[in-house]
């Protein structure tokens, strides 16, 4: 009898296209899901919907122009991306930028990281159904954008760093407004915790969901908050300091649980670290030139150059293979999102659709970064 019913009633796995246009994907990422009812059997990411061949475009552009292209990678940490290319070029030219440039770049990088994490926090809440977080986060992110806009004239694609320094000097209001912002954000971050972190539904949705072990985190090559949520020490700012990170005091945030909540806590804690870094430097911006003169046409010496920085989502590497001309022979970008995406199938398998959305939110994907 039991045999008979089993033969008659059977379940089937089915495919669902999550994306390329899907509210949870934050961009044009297509996930081909194999689902059994609500349970995910397989996640197959399909890339290429926003491929703009940026690496190829770099091969025909001069080094000053390449900086502009990197804004379009991870558009939420554009200052940091610009910095990566500038540092690579400066390394190749053996150019030492002034202290003023180093400190300003550090402050801008950290403000960018704050802005990026704020946006992530809002979107994470929204993905889990708490729509109000989005507006809380955007309210505060707007202040950072205003600060950037005053100095470099842009709010998203900044183009502020150039090989050898900065494009413009700081706006006279910069220090005052940054201090105002720090006061506000220090008042508001505890409010974020009260709204979302302590919420019992939020903790149920994230604790123990999508556990990434330390071994897997290393073997899949994850970086940034995703790896640090699994207890992997990988902060480039600590290991290979660049800009002025060697002269500020900050902690690398590490959590060992490896679940979605740990990744959430890493980012929340990193916001406090960023605030502390900006606080340490904001009163100590040294006087000096904002750029070291370079030739109008930069020609790198023959050879291979690699520079990595800690972007908001993890390690961003820029590899330049130069043949001594004004263009790179090959420029490869190692983006954090691509490596982090590779682990998605591994940890989302066996969870529910809701879990996948939570995991994706905690990974904080920016699709143009994955799909260059």
């Amino acid at each position, binding site marked *: 009898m039991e045999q008979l019913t089993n033969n008659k009633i059977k379940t089937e796995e089915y495919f*669902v296209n999550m994306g390329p246009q899907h509210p*949870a994907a934050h961009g044009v990422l297509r996930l081909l899901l194999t689902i059994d009812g609500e349970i995910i059997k397989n996640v197959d990411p399909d890339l290429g919907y926003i491929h703009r061949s940026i690496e190829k475009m770099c091969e025909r552009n001069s080094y000053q122009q390449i900086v502009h292209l990197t804004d379009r990678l991870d558009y939420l940490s554009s200052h940091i991306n610009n910095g990566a290319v500038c540092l690579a070029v400066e390394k190749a030219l053996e150019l030492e930028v002034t202290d003023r440039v180093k400190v300003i770049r550090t402050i801008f990088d950290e403000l960018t990281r704050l802005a990026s994490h704020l946006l992530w926090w809002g979107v994470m*809440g929204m993905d*889990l159904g708490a729509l109000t977080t*989005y507006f*809380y986060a955007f309210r505060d992110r707007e202040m950072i954008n205003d600060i950037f806009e005053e100095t470099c004239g842009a709010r998203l694609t900044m183009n502020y760093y150039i090989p050898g320094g900065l494009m413009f000097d700081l706006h006279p209001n910069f220090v005052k407004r940054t201090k105002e912002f720090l006061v506000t954000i220090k008042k508001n971050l505890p409010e974020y915790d009260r709204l979302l972190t302590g*919420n019992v*539904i939020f903790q149920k949705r994230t604790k123990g969901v999508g556990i990434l072990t330390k071994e897997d985190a290393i073997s899949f090559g994850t970086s940034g908050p995703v790896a640090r949520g699994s207890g992997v020490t990988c902060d480039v700012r600590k290991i290979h300091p660049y800009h002025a990170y060697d002269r500020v005091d900050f902690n690398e945030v590490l959590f060992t649980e490896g679940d979605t909540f740990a990744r959430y806590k890493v980012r929340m804690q990193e916001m406090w670290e960023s605030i502390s870094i900006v606080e340490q430097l904001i009163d100590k911006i040294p006087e000096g030139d904002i750029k070291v003169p370079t030739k109008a046409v930069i020609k790198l010496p023959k050879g291979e150059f690699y520079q990595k920085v800690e972007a908001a989502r993890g390690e961003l590497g820029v590899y330049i293979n130069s043949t001594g001309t004004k263009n790179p022979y090959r420029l490869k970008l190692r983006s954090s999102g691509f490596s982090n995406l590779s682990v998605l199938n591994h940890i989302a398998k066996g969870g529910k*659709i*809701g879990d996948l959305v939570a995991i994706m939110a905690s990974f904080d994907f920016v699709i143009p970064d994955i799909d260059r």
Partner: protein
Amino acid sequence: MMNIPLSITSTIHDWLFSIMPEGAATFTEWILIATAYLALFAVAGLYLVLLERKVAAWFQFRLGPNRVGPWGIFQTIADALKLVSKEIYSNERVDKFLFNLAPYFVIVASLMAMAVFPFSKQFQGFDINIGVFFLFAISSIGVIGLLVGGWASNNKYSLIGAMRSGLQTISYELSVGLSILTMVLLTGTLQLSEIIEVQRTGGWLIFQGHIPAVIAFMIFMIAGTAETNRAPFDLVEAESELGAGFHTEYSGMQFAYFFLAEFINMFIIASIAVVLFFGGWLSPFGITEGITWFPEVLWFVIKVFMIILLMMWFRWTFPRLRVDQLLTLEWKYLLPINMVNLVFMAIVIWLNFTL
């Protein structure tokens, strides 16, 4: 006791019977009442949408709709006009019959529930002696519309949404039913008007029943929010997971039916809560007891709006549950608590511990 609605309706009633034969007059009256209720339904639904948008805006440092009319009060009317004038479009290879039928299930269920609403003593369409049972039975027809709509849409997201709505509504109906039963135990009647009259002398039921009544109220609010498919139980249309869930493929007026039904269902749940726990149309502490011209319906509406604001507060604060957590909450926590609470209430009444 001359109440305003009563005075108008009796005038019309006398006038109709004076100019027509009895059968025709009764029929005309039915149509008039039905039209009045439809209009009420439409206005209530539209303005709940506006209220929701305004409340959301207040929670989120925004202004909300403020362009069409003063404080945006005509915004929803403009939206409704837009929806009415839109093309009703359907996907390829949908089950046409079921696809077009689904919105009517949802809307008719909500409309029929309105018939027994005790707005005030004289303002109640249909005062049957199984009022609570009727409300509860009718409001659970709506889920058929969601299931049918999701199934007929030929869309996997809609199907997942429909399945979720099915399991959610069926599970949480148990809790709604049991918490209502707890209160019915206290009143000893299912007739809505009598439930309210019981509270005239003994105080509101939430005070009469004290501890078990408060527990019943909390369970009712949780389960009621789940019944209406609103956040934190909006898995049915979890937009970050399923797009728009079961109504993804609907457009124009068909979508509007689903949308309005959600708000009317919220109104229904709030009304049941007001009748069962907060004395329906009765004034707090009887402050307008002696004032004959005072429209009692005002108290009912004020209380209903307080409950609705509470539900909106939930929606704009909480994240969404996962589907297995939703079922765990119901079957492992709410249902056992509810059953114990029912027995507790019975003991309280048996020992005469009610206030």
